[in-house]
Every structure is written in C-alpha cells, then in structure tokens.
C-alpha cells in the first residue's frame, strides 16, 4: 500500500478539546476517485483542508506523491507547493477578477510563461464549456456557470490532486445531475487523483470509484461504490 499517491497516516485534528478528526488513516491510489461521505460535522471538510494544507494536523502525517507534506503538528510543504486544485463549497471565485483573470492568477503564480497562459486558460474553459464567459466577472454568472468557472480554476494549473468540497450543494437537482455527469466525463479524460466530499450517497455513487464513510472524525467503512451500496442495504434490512 505504500505506493499510494495520497496517504493520511494516523491524522488527528483538535479544535480546543474537541477532536474533529481522530486517528484517521486513508490511502488513495494514483488516478483514483474517492468520495468522502458523511453527515455535516463528521470531520470530512477538516480532513480535506489538512490535505490541502489549510489546516495543520495535530498528530499524524500527510503524504502526497511520495512526499511528506505535513508531519509532527506542522506544515512541511505549503499549500501552493502541493500541486493541488480545490473547489470550495462556496466556490470562492475572486470577485475582482474576470473568469479568465481567476484562472490567470493561478497560472501566473505558478510562473507559467505569459504566452502559454492564454492557451491553458482557453483549454480549461473549453473543458467545462464556459469559454464564452472568459471576460465576465463571477458576479454576473449564473450558479451553474460559477460552478464551472470554479472547476476550471481548480484544473487549470494541472494539479496532481483535485479536491472538491461539496461543490454541488448549492445547486438545484436537474443542474446538479447534469454537472455531475459532466464532471465524471471530465474526470475520465483528465485521470487526476480526486477526493470528493459529499453528504449525498447518490452523488458519491455517480462520481467515485471508491467511497470512504466518515463518522465522528473516523472512517467507518471503505469500499467500492457497489460494496458500500450492498452493505447499506444489508444494514437497512437488519434494522427492519
């Protein structure tokens, strides 16, 4: 298992004396798409933030691509050197920059030469089908367009690891299912290792290869989507 691309090793995070993530270990292979499934407050967002480097684990280690990025209660590799794309729940598009400007900031920060930037931005916007809105400000876009722009910003830097924190939670159901199937197709073509956070088993099933169920800061079940579905059904039967 040591060839896993993303490894969380006995990771613990406390806020005050409340343990939000408890001794959590998880291995994710390169190219895998894993859904972290759990109710709100179960610690899944905190786990994601520790992978991204926005939170420091109090104990345990985080490894990405064979490199230790956080250990012994401190950040070893800062977020911007981890090769991560993250889509926030509230999208967090920079309101003072256009869509292209949002993507451009990522590329410029990664020191991508100016002439390549335009091409890369156009490519990313084409992938999520909002090339027509390149020069629009985020505030002028519809909810679905904002969603696509946020995904484009997360993939434009060609991250090795893509993190999505309930990115569909603010959308209505028809739009959500359309975007989900598009995202799944995008995943197949990019092949980026992905961690997708959701509280909705249907979303997890639509997108992920594997599912890890979280409860009270721990992973209580892992398996393929099929295995998990069968287990849930069994449990439901037992309760009846």
């Amino acid at each position, binding site marked *: 298992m040591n060839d896993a691309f993303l490894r969380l090793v006995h990771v613990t995070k406390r806020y005050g004396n409340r343990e939000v993530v408890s001794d959590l270990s998880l291995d994710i292979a390169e190219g895998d798409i894993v859904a972290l499934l759990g109710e709100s407050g179960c610690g899944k967002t905190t786990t994601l933030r520790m992978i991204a480097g926005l939170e420091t684990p109090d104990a345990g280690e985080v490894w990405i691509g064979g490199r230790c990025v956080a250990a012994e209660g401190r950040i070893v590799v800062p977020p*911007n050197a981890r090769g991560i794309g993250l889509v926030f729940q509230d999208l967090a598009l*920079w309101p003072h920059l256009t869509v292209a400007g949002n993507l451009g900031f990522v590329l410029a920060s990664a020191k991508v030469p100016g002439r390549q930037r335009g091409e890369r931005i156009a490519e990313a916007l084409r992938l999520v089908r909002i090339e027509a809105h390149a020069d629009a400000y985020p505030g002028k876009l519809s909810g679905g367009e904002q969603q696509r722009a946020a995904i484009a910003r997360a993939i434009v830097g060609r991250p090795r690891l893509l993190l999505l924190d309930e990115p569909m939670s603010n959308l209505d159901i028809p739009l959500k299912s359309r975007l989900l199937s598009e995202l799944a197709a995008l995943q197949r073509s990019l092949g980026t290792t992905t961690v997708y956070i959701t509280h909705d088993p249907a979303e997890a099933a639509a997108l992920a290869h594997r599912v890890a169920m979280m409860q009270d800061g721990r992973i209580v079940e892992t398996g393929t989507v099929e295995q998990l579905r069968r287990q849930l059904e069994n449990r439901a039967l037992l309760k009846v």
Partner: protein
Amino acid sequence: MKSSATEKQGIVAVLPSSRRVILAGAAVLFVALCLLPTLYMFGVSLTGPHGGLSTDNYRRLFMDARQRKLLLDSILVGAGAAALATCIGVPLGLLLARTDLPAKRLLRLLFVVPLVIPPYVLGLAWIYTGSSTGLIARIFGRDLLSAWTYSLTGAIIVLGTGFYPLSMLAMEAAARRMEGHLEEAALLAANPARVLWRITLPLIAPSITAAALIIFVLSLSEFGVPSLLRVPVFTTEVFTAFAALYDFGAATALAVPLLLVALIAGVAVMFVIGDRMITTRRSAYAGLLYALGHWKPAALAFLAVVLLATVALPLAVLARETGQLGRMIAAVQASGGAIANSLLLSGAGATLIVALSALLGYGMGRAPTRLRTMAELAFLVVFAVPGTVVGIGLIDLWNRPGLPGEIYKSPLIVLIGYLARFVPVAALILAANVRQTPLSLEEAAAVAGAPWPKAFGRIVLPQLRAGLLAAWVVAFIFAFGELGATVLVAPPGTSTLPVHIYTLIANAPSSEVAALALMQVGIVLMPLVVVGVFLRGEG
C-alpha cells in the same frame, strides 16, 4: 367571525400607518433641524444685496484669484490629510486584523485615541511643539520649525494624525468581513505575500478608498486646525466673512463650494462602496492570520513610532505646557462654568441625537435599497457640512423675532447645532445595526398583535443595545469637541469648553490653555475606556 387571513391583513394594514407616522415625524424633524439651515444658506447665497435672485455672490467668488487659491488650498488640506491618514491607518489596520500581534484589543483602543481628541487640541499640541517658543525651540535654543509649524503642511500633518484611526478601523473591519475562502483559494496557488497583494488588498480597496474620502471631507470641513495654524481655507474664511466683516452674502457663498466638494466626495463614496458590499459578507472562516516572524521587531517599531508621535507626544507636550498640577486645578476652577455647560449640553445633545437617530436609522435600515442609498448620501453630505457653515445657517434661520429668537438666545441653539451636525453619523451607525437584526423578530411581534411603537421599544431597541451605546459615545465625543458651529451660536454666558479654550488662546497664558485642553482630552477619553471595558465583556 373574520377568518384568520383577514385578521392578518388587518394587522398589516394598520401597523405600517403608526410606523409611518412616527418615522415621517422623525424625518420632518431631521429636515427642519439638520437640513434646513444648510438649504436656507444655499438659498440666501443666491439672493442679491437688494433681494431677488442673483448670482452676484458667486461671480465675486470665482472672479477673485484669492478665492480660487482658497479652493485649491482647502482641497490640498483635505487630500493631504486623507493620504497621510491612509498611509498610517492601512498598515495599522492590517496588523490588527491579520497578524499574530499580542494585545490587539488594547492596541486598537490606544490607536483610536487621536480620533476622539478634538482636532484643535492636537493643533494646540503641534503649536506647543514647533512654534518659536515651543518645545523644539526650547530644546535646541533656536527657532527651527515655526515657519513650518504655521503652514499648510502643518495642517495636513495634524489632521492626518488625527484622522488615521478612521482608516485603520475601516481597513480592519473590511479585512475581518472578507470571505476567508477567497484567500485560501489563492493560497493554493500563490505564496502568502502574493495573496496579500493580489487578492486581499484589491478586495479591501473599496473600503480603504471610502475611508479616505470621508477623511478628505472631514478635513475639508475642519475649522479649528486651519484657524489655529493660520492656514486660510474655506471654513476659516466663512468664519471671518461673518464674524469679522458681517458679510452674510459672502459667508454663505463661500460655504457653497465646500458643499459641492462634499457632495462630490459623498457620491464617490457611495459609488466606491456600491454593490461590492455583497461580496464582503461575514464568513465562517476568518481570513488568513499572518505570523510576523522576523518582521515582528519592525512591526512593533512602527506601532511604537505611531503611538509616540500621535498619542504620547501631544499629551506630553500639553502636560509640559501646563507645568504643575496646581495650575490644572486652578484652570479647571476658573473655567468650571464652561466645563459644566459642555458636559451638560453634550450629554443632553448625545441623548437627543441617539433618540432621533434610532428612528431615522431604523427607517433607513428597513427602507428599499434605492431609498436607503439616497438617505445615506444625504446623511454623508450633511455630515460633511462644516461647523462654521452650520453655525451661520442656524443664525440666519433662528435669529428672528418671536419663538425662534427666544430659542436662539437660549442654550437650546447649541443643542440644535449638535443635532444638525451629528445626527447623520449616529443614524448611519444605527442603520447598519438595524440591517443586521432580522425583520422576522418584528414581524413575529406584529403577528402577536403588538402595535409598532411597542414592537420597536420592546423588540427592536433591545437588539440595538450595542449600536445605541456606540452611537451615544460617538455623538458625545463629537459634541464635546464641537467648535465650528458653537463658536458662532453659543449665547453669551453659555460658553462651552472648546469655545472657551478657543477664545483663551489669544489672550491667556498658554499654561491655562494647555491645562484646559488636557481636561478636555481626559473627559473624552472616559467614555472610550467605558466602551473598552464594555466590549471586553462582549468578547
């Protein structure tokens, strides 16, 4: 029996009318007390020496090269003070909002001190430092700075160091309000320094600009500092035209360019803040907290220099000028009447201001967006009207036979002056507070059958406690330091402390003036300490 639906309709139909009557009454009071003096002056400025519509006053004004220079100097003072205040206030606000400095609450309180000291007191301290008989001259045995002390640059420095807390507070509030995820998203791509420059500061820029414009307007309408430092600007010229030359027409016409500049700045503030407010809602994740690391000594040195230069130095100079405690006691005894007047009038004024502002702020907070924007603009412009202009407007309006004349001859006119100048600030503070309290609380009271005045008194006002206290303290501090209007309208025998000090400057020993100025600072610092203790409790 009526159905519950019609009963509900009945409530909805009855309630707004009592609410509307009360709010309309407050609005009428605002127009009569705060707006009318200025509007009346504007009208007077358009009449000729023999009555009738005329632009004579303006022609005189703009034909005169001296007047053009006056306009330029006024704008220079305002712009210079705004620039200086921004340069000091923005780094301070950033340090307080976003770094791991210790004792930030205490620091914030200390750095607010220059704002509550009336500007003319800072001007006095500046003179006692740099004039031909001042501190510097005494230390070096030579007059090094006096030419520079009484100058436009001097006025800019004094006003800039007096108003930088506004910029600091605006910066800090904006940095705190900012959506934390916006910075975190950037942090995944860029290092913290780049995030600060390219994401954080551009997003906060509108608030910084708005604060700068407000400081510009406040400096432009300041009377005490340019008057003390002998810098001819519009506010002092208005005073001279009226008090020395009794030229009513000229005084009013002089006031109008100031009003226009204030109006332009007010529109600019609204434009700058505009719809960007939407993106700066309060977020679950606070913004980035930067560890100062090896920058800590530099940051602490910056804080120390600002604190020494803008708080410690002025107070120390005043204390030194006072000399002994005995002189202070003597001065306070000699001026006890003025001090008592000031306390009484400012306390009563602040209470009246908050009472009227609570209604106006409520009306504004609950008004539709466009109406609210217009009201905010009106309040900003009224607040920008210089004290001397308000003073002349009040004289113009109230000094006539009958009941107005009786009021004009009584201390009530000073209260009206306070209302005219400071209701807008208090109302803006309270409107912001009202918008943060959910409408559903009142609706619940209405559905329960409470008439609006009761719902307002029992449900809304208790929600606004902190805002009401803040508005009262701000109004008290402003009223206690008010000079421009009071110096014109205070009836004989009811001098306030600022007016008393202002008249003493020319013909009393500086030790007595300094003692009274210290006294003035001590009194305005008291509510600040109370607020500090109160906020500590709130967390």
